């Protein structure tokens, strides 16, 4: 048995519904510090819901199971407390917030997190220096700093802005929800660079993606296949190649088998 201490996130039997529809039907997942996991699966399988539940989106109602992050009950924390504890959600569709400046918002966020951790707040000058450095990492034009959050950004710019925010906030657990969708190959490289720059022995990344493409740039340690609100298969990086060959048709087409696999696979 591995040392209990390096388990960053442990999800057991997690169930959640939106409105009256159950989306997550018992998810089991364990992520250790230093690891990158990828969750793949067809549309509607519950991948994004899982990401949202972990970040505390209120539209999702958790109906069962647990999620333990660094030994604490993640689901009991408000979204901002999760952020303060080091959880970051990269949005599939980053929200446009007219009237709130990008850097102004990010400094507010960073200082809220620092306050919550009992650290000193960064003043405007120090923050600006930090922001400039991190913007370079994702090739974000410094002019984006003064624009409203995501307002009028292209799809690629929004995703790079997510990675920029992640780079500034330096989370311990980054959950990136389809961070690769809608990116051309250059933007994908930039985003991947940002994710790889975050990798460290005491951090973990959970990538939610539909395509294998991202995994060629950010090499995962584990890959999980999600279908019907459960993780139905888990494996090493080679699983991505298999999915590339077979697609997800087998997932939908052979549900009873899949459910058996899920029962066995979760503990493998």
């Amino acid at each position, binding site marked *: 048995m591995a040392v209990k201490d390096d388990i960053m996130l442990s999800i057991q039997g997690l169930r959640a519904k939106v409105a009256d529809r159950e989306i997550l039907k018992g998810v089991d997942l364990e992520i250790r510090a230093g690891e990158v996991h990828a969750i793949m699966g067809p549309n509607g399988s519950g991948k994004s819901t899982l990401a949202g539940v972990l*970040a*505390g*989106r*209120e*539209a999702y109602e958790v109906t069962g199971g647990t999620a333990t992050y660094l030994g604490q009950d993640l689901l009991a924390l*408000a*979204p*901002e407390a*999760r*952020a*303060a504890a080091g959880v*970051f*959600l990269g*949005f599939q569709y*980053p*929200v*446009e*917030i*007219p*009237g*709130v400046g990008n850097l*102004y*918002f*990010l*400094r*507010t*966020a*960073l*200082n*809220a*997190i620092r306050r*919550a951790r009992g650290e000193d707040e960064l003043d405007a000058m120090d923050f600006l220096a930090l922001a400039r450095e991190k913007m370079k990492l994702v090739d974000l034009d410094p002019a984006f700093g003064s624009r*409203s*959050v995501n307002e009028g950004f292209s799809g690629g710019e929004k995703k790079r802005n997510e990675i920029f*925010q992640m780079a500034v*906030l330096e989370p311990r657990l980054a959950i990136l929800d389809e961070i690769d969708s809608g990116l051309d190959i250059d933007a994908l490289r930039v985003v991947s660079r940002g994710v790889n720059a975050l990798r460290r022995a005491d951090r973990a990344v959970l990538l939610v993606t539909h395509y294998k493409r991202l995994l060629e740039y950010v090499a995962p340690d584990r890959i999980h296949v999600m279908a019907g609100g459960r993780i139905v298969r888990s494996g090493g990086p080679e699983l991505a190649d298999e999915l590339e060959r077979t697609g997800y048709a087998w997932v939908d087409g052979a549900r009873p088998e899949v459910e058996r696999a899920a029962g066995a696979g979760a503990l493998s």
Partner: protein
Amino acid sequence: MTPAEQSLAAAFRGGAGEPAWLADARAGALAAFRAAGLPTTRHEDWRFTSLAALSTLSLAPAPAPDDGEGPARALLAGRAAPEGARLVFENGRFRRELSTGAPLPAGAVLGSLADALRHAPEAVRPHLGRLARVDGLAFTALNGALLEDGAFLLLPPGARVEAPIELVFATGAAGRAVAVHPRVLVVAGEGARATLAEVHLGTGDTYLANSVTELVLGEGAEVEHLRLQDEGPRAFHVSAVFAEQAARSRLTAHGLALGGQLARSEVRARLAGEGAELAVSGLYMADGARTTDAFTWVEHAVPRCTTTETYKGILDGRARGVFAGRIVVQPGAQKTSARQMNSNLLLSDDAIVDTKPQLEIFADDVKCGHGGTVGQLDEAALFYLRSRGVEEAEARSLLIWAFAAEMVDLVRPAGLHARARELVAARLPAGRKVLEAAA
């Protein structure tokens, strides 16, 4: 008559010692008030704003100025020195010793209206009450009957006052409900320019502040008229701005309506000369069980005039907000351009807003549009902010601030802008933090 109507009418002292034209005007105004009575919700223009709480009050005339006891000194304590002239009115009367002078262009007059009526009534006579019609407008009639003091600004052609002129109205008396009826008269000659800010403040006592402002803009005149309404929590505030614009004149009428248990702000503008431009705007905020009402009436009487109207409302608790904006384009007022927008943010399930943008167009070659929105804070944006670590109260405040900022920033003079930011931020759950972060 209601107790309020009785007590208000009983304050009438005629016009003893005043010029006959003024005494006649007072008597006429009193008759108009008696005929109209305080409006009820059966009155179309007051459908959503009930004066029931006011009507039961017995309202006394404000006490005479008294050095020790007036509310102005305390209400102004700690305030930065004004950028230009500041005239302070305590319970409706000019207080010279609390006021600040500033240089004026040659021929310009700025001072107490009561002084002007005493010493130079002929300068006031052609304009006082000309725009502020009393028929059917009970509060304006009441002001016309009972007005004692206020500000008088006369700008000869070409006179330009660069620094903003601040008019502070501080109201309230301990132990009794008082009524004050300040009057502001601004006559801007051809090509004259000025920025004028009315600041309405008050104590925590119950009172009625019933102000009337008349703005006369000559050809090409530019007037910026600002109102920072920060009345006390038990105040009834009714203000009416009447404006008439000659050709190519430009008026900006902008207000922040933040205080009072019931606040009604009216702007009635007539675009009377070709090429005149009006920008009328405001922010109203209310929480608790307060009522705030923004009423505008704009008349395009001639061709080629422009109106841009933008009002925003933020309502919380069980507050009630009312917006009624009417733009009338008269026959022959071709090439009129008029845009009207009213957006409202409801922060609670119990807050109510009634919005009524209205265009009445009797000309066929015009560009007019209007719209209104009523919405809540964007939950997706709120979650986005929180997921980044911003506390809920601060995230809410940030989003409310983003909604309101445009209206705060329309208060341009630096000192008043800083004040406006503080006043609005003070009404947000984590406004202090938002101000710090934005600094």
